[in-house]
């Protein structure tokens, strides 16, 4: 069942990358890009899970403020990996900042070219270059 989770996340990544490449509308590309970012971050967190067959797992947060040495050993044996979570936190925030910049650029492109379709923008741009150099 764990393998079904990994396989469906890979399928999500493949479908959203297809959506970025093959659809000519800029807003559709933006939506598919956000789906791809989220799926890749989830795969990174999935690699930090673990299986321990004798007790229930816990997230990497210590619950008592004055632990005994046995508490620390238990914590080390039962907690999930904290390192991928710290790295994915950074990745989500940077992804959001770049997405805000992308939205600002799409609005600027729309006000200049009056359309958001990549095929028509490249035709207009080709026409403008031919005009300038003729």
């Amino acid at each position: 069942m764990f393998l079904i989770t990994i396989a469906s996340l890979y399928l999500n990544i493949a479908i959203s990358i297809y959506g970025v490449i093959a659809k000519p509308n800029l807003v559709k590309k933006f939506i598919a890009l956000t789906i791809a970012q989220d799926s890749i971050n989830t795969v990174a967190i999935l690699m930090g899970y673990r299986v321990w067959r004798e007790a229930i797992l816990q997230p990497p947060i210590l619950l008592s403020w004055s632990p005994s040495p046995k508490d620390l050993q238990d914590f080390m044996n039962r907690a999930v990996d904290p390192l991928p979570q710290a790295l994915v936190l950074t990745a989500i925030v940077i992804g959001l900042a770049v997405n805000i910049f992308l939205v600002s650029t799409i609005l600027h492109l729309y006000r200049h070219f009056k359309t958001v379709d990549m095929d028509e923008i490249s035709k207009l741009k080709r026409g403008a270059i031919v005009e300038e150099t003729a």
Partner: protein
Amino acid sequence: MKLRDVLFIALIIFVTFILLIPTLLGSIGATPPGDLRNIAKLYLYLTYNIFNKSFWTASPEAVTAIVWDYRGLDTLYETIVFYTAIIAALMLYSEILGQRDVVGGIGLSFIVKRGFSIALLAIIAVGFSTVLHGMLTPGGGFQGGAIVAVAPVIALIVFSRKLFDYSKLSYRLLVALRSLALTGIVLVPLIPLALTLGNGFIFQNQVKTLARFSYPSTIIDVPMGGSLLLLNLFEGIAVFTAFMLAFIVLLYSEDLSKKPLEGEDIGY
């Protein structure tokens, strides 16, 4: 179903299989993994170890300790990248920043305004509580900043732009707050170096064997985490003001937003 669609579907399934077969054979380890890596065990053992205080961080939460103490430089550079992206998004509209909008509005109806005022206070309270408790429970600077950033965006839609144009929460105040928060983030790791006259480390939190400087490790009886509380607070303020600035600029009306584009079709 055209031939092109069938071909694309076959290609997607083929790519998924290419990624799946090495995973089945064990390329990212056993699935699911049975034991942690050694470095993760080391971080979990050392972060709140009151018997061996040579590497501890006085915070029972391992993720915040890794983000702001064991890997503090990564988070500093990530804050710089965030700052640069917001500056780049604002510089496209540099002629109209801080101006009042030409089109006024009246906002939504009376019921929505009254109901939203209660929810606004609740969102801000939850967000700040998440920021301040980052070293004891799941939380921290980024999480609390993203929660608080939802509130002014909806306020802009419910109360119309007049709330922001005619209030004291102007563009220059927000930029000043943001710069102060970023200065705070840069100063907190440099204070150990300044106070011990060169005998400390950058990003130092508690006492190490070669350097004898430490931020306080408890507040009355609650573990504080030393510099983690201050860094979380400054990061929360920086994230919240950055999102508020970006949304105020993106939500101008079309008449005013076309001003930076004047003259582009005649080539200035």
